[in-house]
């Protein structure tokens, strides 16, 4: 792991397929903005800077999922040039909503439907590279730390980021939304026969939706301790069909849901 010395740590913030909301979220952490740009040497920040030469960095924050061959090549370059790679946001961590189209066969069909012929993207679009089904970055490279979020919250991001730039190891402690929901003292939707994905969803949002009486749809992606089969049983108990339950889980659950359900 990277060690802090006298010079400021060099940071790169890279974005792939996604809404760029996590990069925006960093810029929106206004009380931290000045410190963010002065405490580290931000060498590459897709959304905030115009020069775009990819440098060697100490910490790479990578947002978005990978869905073109060119992105895949760039991602691998980032891994080689960075000591620490952080997956930023649900898309980078688990694939995001676009992971729903991950199935290779249906992907080809959709490409044909959109682009006609054999489904290949016209040559003049080579600057983005040939598309492929979206996958999280951890499917291709080793990821050191995951910060899920849709988008990430300052409360979640800052403690991890400041440890990294101070040369310390961040604490890995995954929790489901239910923990934060009970921190807020909320009642449980599931107990009243209402849909909620809190038990299988990564915390970090302060249970903002349940606190406003809106069920959790799982936007922070899969919680590491999630028990998907038991969750499906619970959702069936409150009236969902198995198919619907799985669809709901897959919306933001990405590769983890896919892996967990493979055995069934």
């Amino acid at each position, binding site marked *: 792991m990277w060690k802090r010395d006298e010079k400021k740590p060099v940071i790169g913030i890279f974005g792939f397929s996604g809404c760029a909301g996590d990069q925006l979220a960093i810029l929106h*952490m206004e009380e*931290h903005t000045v*410190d*963010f740009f002065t*405490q580290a040497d931000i060498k590459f920040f897709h959304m905030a800077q115009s020069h775009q030469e990819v440098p060697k960095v100490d910490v790479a924050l990578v947002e978005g999922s990978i869905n073109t061959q060119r992105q895949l090549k760039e991602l691998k370059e980032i891994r080689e040039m960075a000591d620490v790679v952080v997956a930023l946001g649900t898309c980078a961590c688990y694939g995001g909503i676009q992971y729903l189209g991950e199935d290779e066969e249906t992907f080809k069909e959709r490409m044909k439907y959109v682009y006609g012929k054999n489904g290949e993207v016209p040559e003049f679009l080579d600057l983005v590279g040939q598309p492929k089904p979206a996958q999280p970055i951890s499917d291709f490279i080793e990821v050191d730390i995951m910060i899920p979020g849709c988008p990430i919250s300052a409360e979640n991001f*800052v*403690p991890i*980021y*400041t*440890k990294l*730039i*101070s040369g*310390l190891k961040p*604490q*890995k*402690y*995954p*929790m*489901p939304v*239910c*923990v934060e929901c*009970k*921190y807020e*003292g*909320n*009642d*449980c939707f*599931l*107990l*009243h026969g209402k849909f909620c994905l*809190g*038990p*299988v969803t990564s915390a970090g949002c302060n249970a903002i939706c349940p606190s406003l*009486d809106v069920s959790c749809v799982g936007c922070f992606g899969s*919680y*590491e*301790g*999630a*028990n998907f*089969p*038991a*969750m499906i*049983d*619970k959702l069936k108990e409150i009236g969902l069909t198995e198919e619907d339950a799985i669809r709901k889980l897959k919306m933001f659950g990405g590769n983890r849901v896919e892996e967990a359900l493979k055995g069934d």
Partner: protein
Amino acid sequence: MKTYTMDKKVFPEFIKLVKSKGKLFGPIKQKNKYSFEEINDSSDLDFDYQRTIIGIKKFLTPPKYKTMIFNKEGTEDVFDGDETNIVIGVHPCDIHSVKILDRLFLANIKDPYYAKKRDNLVIIGHSCLPDDNCLCHSTGTDMVEDGFDLFLTDLGDYYLVWVGSDKGLSLTIAADNLLSEETTEESIRDYVAWQQKRSSMFKKGMPSFKYMADIMNLNYDSDVWEQFGEKCLSCGTCSLVCPTCNCFNVEDIIAMNTEEGFRERQLDSCTLPYYSVVAGDHDFRPNRTARLKLYYTHKLKDYIGRWGQPGCVGCGRCVTYCPVNINVVTVSDALFGEVCETQEVCE
């Protein structure tokens, strides 16, 4: 223990008086749930409740609180809880939970952060009638003799006011004109009749705690754990709503300027992954079954071995709030069932 009676007509005045002594909290109905919230006057209070989602522990071991601030020059301890918090409407089970927390945080090694909050907490208990999920008669926590400052027993038109501490006594002295020291035969009759009525209302019970520690031991390798482990969502709700669960994680949070920061305690749950990870990244309890077993053997076996009493006060919160029906009743029933089938020790 000194006892007074208080006419319910003067209760609003009593609340006004109590409120003048500190920040006053009490049970408030919010949609489907009850919660201890700050109250303005007696009309906010709703004593017709069984349990709040989070018990009185929210005043003693809050979900998150700072214990230290630091910068490049050094560190400084932070002790929350300068203000007096008065909580009214606390049921016997929750008072027992405070007694258990006191034993953990104040007995051998005093936790200064807890001690500060505890010193400034005034507990005014309130009598209750059980619902189907209340278990306190099984855990022996349906009555309280101590652990409160004042305790109000609702006997229709009036309250019996029990004094449990010096803090409580000074409140009664301040409320001298609202209380009567006379206890009539009628009120004794009322009280006994009320107790009998209450006792007859308990429906759900747990197998005897006399054997619980042994049953847990005998069942340590039972398949029952595996079955519950398969069902458990690892969501942590049971620990967070349990009034005696108090485990916390400690995290140092560095500010974006990397010059300063603070240390924070965060309420934790032993049902979460990584709870038992130690230095070198070894995880003693890598799966749900092992973690669930820890939760229940700790609460229902280790507590009994150590203190002669379970870590469960029978409040029924896990019974009410676990989304997949894993709770002290279903777990102990399953374990007793297992032993009954194989060892013929149960009637």
